[in-house]
């Protein structure tokens, strides 16, 4: 099972656990319709498209409504604490949730009890809480953007908003941010850093950079990073190794951007529509 975990911006939406499906209007989780938005919905849609592309089962979503008041996020943490071992997740992606150090540590303690630990990808709030708790070693892949890479590089910060200025200003030197993140044990074995140049890292080394096509107007568009996280999730579930998954996802994201001809006002739905064609193109380009 590919388990996709995160909060959605619908206040009072109860916890839902069920198959994720998508259509032109949006996605459904356990039959409940959700509009495509940046964040968890974009990530889940991207993962769905990728799973369909690779002919594997659709993901299972574990979502709850949370507009920042914590209740939905707490329901998610508590469900994982109680039920994760019986869910049979092979790959689990943890995404937008309100960081909660104590509850996340309880989730990790539950994982410690499992005979078969799922491969774990974290981005957004789930990555923040993992790093803040000193628990990055539990996870297989992080997918930070540049601001988040600076946060991972700062061993004192427990949220990107607390990244110290001298590290924030190191963003022209991404390899140094990567070095610091690994030196502080705040990085994952495989890591994808999203930016004007994407960096793919393995065990502390930069093993690939992705520069083309360069679509500058992708940066202001909310949700483009979520597409990468979703694709990596689907690819891992389809049996692709983490490093190759990062290579494919980074290139497909740029290809989808190019196909959608975005402006800074473009919304992520328009890029998502181009994702199947982008995956085809990348497969052809990489000779897969």
């Amino acid at each position, binding site marked *: 099972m590919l388990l996709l975990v*995160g*909060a*959605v*911006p619908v*206040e009072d939406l109860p916890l839902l656990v069920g198959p994720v499906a998508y259509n032109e209007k949006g996605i459904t989780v356990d039959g409940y319709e959700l509009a495509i*938005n*940046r*964040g*968890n*919905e974009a990530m889940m849609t991207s993962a769905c498209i990728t799973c369909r592309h690779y002919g594997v089962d659709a993901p299972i979503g574990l979502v709850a409504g*949370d*507009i*920042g*008041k*914590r209740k*939905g*996020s707490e329901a998610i943490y508590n469900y994982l604490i109680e039920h994760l071992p019986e869910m049979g997740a092979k790959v689990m992606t943890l995404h*937008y*949730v*309100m*960081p*909660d*150090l*104590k509850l*996340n540590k309880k989730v990790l303690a539950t994982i410690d009890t499992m005979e078969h630990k799922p491969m774990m990808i974290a*981005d*957004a*709030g*789930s990555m*923040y809480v993992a790093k*803040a708790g000193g628990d990055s070693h539990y996870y297989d892949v992080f997918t930070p*953007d540049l*601001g*988040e890479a600076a*946060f991972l590089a700062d061993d*004192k*910060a*427990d*949220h*990107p*908003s*607390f*990244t*110290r*200025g001298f590290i*924030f*200003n190191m963003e022209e030197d991404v390899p140094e941010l990567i070095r610091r993140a690994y030196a502080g044990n705040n990085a994952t074995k495989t890591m994808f850093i999203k930016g004007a140049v994407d960096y793919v890292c393995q065990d502390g080394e930069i093993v690939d950079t992705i520069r083309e096509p360069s679509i*500058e*107007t992708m*940066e*202001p*568009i*909310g*949700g483009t*990073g979520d597409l990468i996280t979703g694709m990596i999730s689907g690819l891992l579930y389809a049996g692709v190794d983490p490093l190759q998954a990062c290579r494919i996802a980074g290139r497909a994201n740029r290809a989808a951007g190019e196909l959608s001809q975005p*402006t*800074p*006002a*473009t*919304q992520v739905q328009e890029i998502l529509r181009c994702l199947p064609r982008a995956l085809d193109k990348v497969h052809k380009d990489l000779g897969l």
Partner: protein
Amino acid sequence: MNWFKKKEKPSQEENDSHAVTRGLLVFAHPTTVIDVEQILREEGYEIRVVSPPPSYRTGCDLSVEFPLEAEAAITELLNNSNLTPLDVVPITSKGMEPLQFVRKKWYGKYLMVRAANMKITVDTETKIIVNISGGGCPDVPYLATALIGKHINEAPDLTEVGFSLCAYSLNTAREELVREIGA
């Protein structure tokens, strides 16, 4: 015997353990701190917006450090402003301050401003917010829905609709945007 032996300067730790002169106002949501900061600064208090000590941390928190001798006056002021803190505690260690640096990038008529991990983009001709990107707390997608398509003057106040540190950073970016292009 050296009668004039220089008295050893106490270490920082000793200083911290003996002189508790600062307190911390703890709130339920980081964005509440935006209003608290404004009120206390306007009243002339020397305050710092900081991360709370580890025992109070959840991973998404912001609090206000203040001179402890002003506790009674400050708590009364905040109570009267409906900004009552969850807790008021004395502190001995310094918290980290949130990042105030911003970066700006122009895309023709569009301007993107980034603070920490949050980006806001506006069409500078119409002053309509066209995109919000970055962040990881669950109010970010909600805030994007609430703000995108709105004139920068008409968009909801982030202290009312946001709850997280990401919302705090988004507010920092938005304030810079207003400074740059005007309201």
